[in-house]
């Protein structure tokens, strides 16, 4: 299960809307070992494509260095599908299998009035959808 604060969900959706019709991507980090998404980090889609995303390699290097220095982990890797459902594609499964410890969050912006927000675990080529529990932001 992914437990995530409402404001972080809102940030992801806003980023996806902003970059539509290109795919938007980014991560949410949290303290190492916590599985708790806390720090929202939108990333540049180096592919600038409506059907593909990729973190820029220098941005990726800096992200990992930063995460290491802060003793964090990448809790969530998110991206948008802009014309199809929020479900991992074959490409997502290939790349997602490399980050089995992160929640693979997908949003779809195909409907301008409605947003699909779903979370998956991807490991060894297998996709498992998981429930998303959104917490109100009032606490913390």
């Amino acid at each position, binding site marked *: 299960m992914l437990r995530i604060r409402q404001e972080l969900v809102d940030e992801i959706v806003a980023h996806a809307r902003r970059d539509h019709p290109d795919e938007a991507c980014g991560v949410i980090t949290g303290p190492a070992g916590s599985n708790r998404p806390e720090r929202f980090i939108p990333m540049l889609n180096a592919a600038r494509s409506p059907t593909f995303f990729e973190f820029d*390699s220098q941005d*990726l*290097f800096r992200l990992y260095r930063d995460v290491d220095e802060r003793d964090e982990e990448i809790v969530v890797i998110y991206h948008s599908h802009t014309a199809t459902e929020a479900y991992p594609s074959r490409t997502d499964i290939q790349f997602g299998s490399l980050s089995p410890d992160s929640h693979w969050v997908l949003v779809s912006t195909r409907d301008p009035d409605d947003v699909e927000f779903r979370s998956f675990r991807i490991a060894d080529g297998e996709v498992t959808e998981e429930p998303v529990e959104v917490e109100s932001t009032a606490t913390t």
Partner: protein
Amino acid sequence: MAIEVRIPTILRSYTGGDKAVEGKGDTLGDLFADLDARHGGLRDRLVGGDGSLNRFVNVYLNDEDVRFLGGIETPVSDGDVVTILPAVAGGAAEGTTAGG
């Protein structure tokens, strides 16, 4: 002196859980062959059948992506740090060549 190679979580099954290992070689290709002698199977996760770097990993010499240096032929020397990271990519298009 040797070359330090930082291993991402997903590949630590090849290094007995170690986050970093040491190796030697004059080029990145040599270094990976040297590592493979002690960590069998690792090279296949880094280098494709055509001998070039695998699409699914990013490899950095110190802080520079080796794709912008000499790829697998990039010269390396003692004291260098090589960092391997899983590429983060995906998207609605089916197949890894789509959209590039």
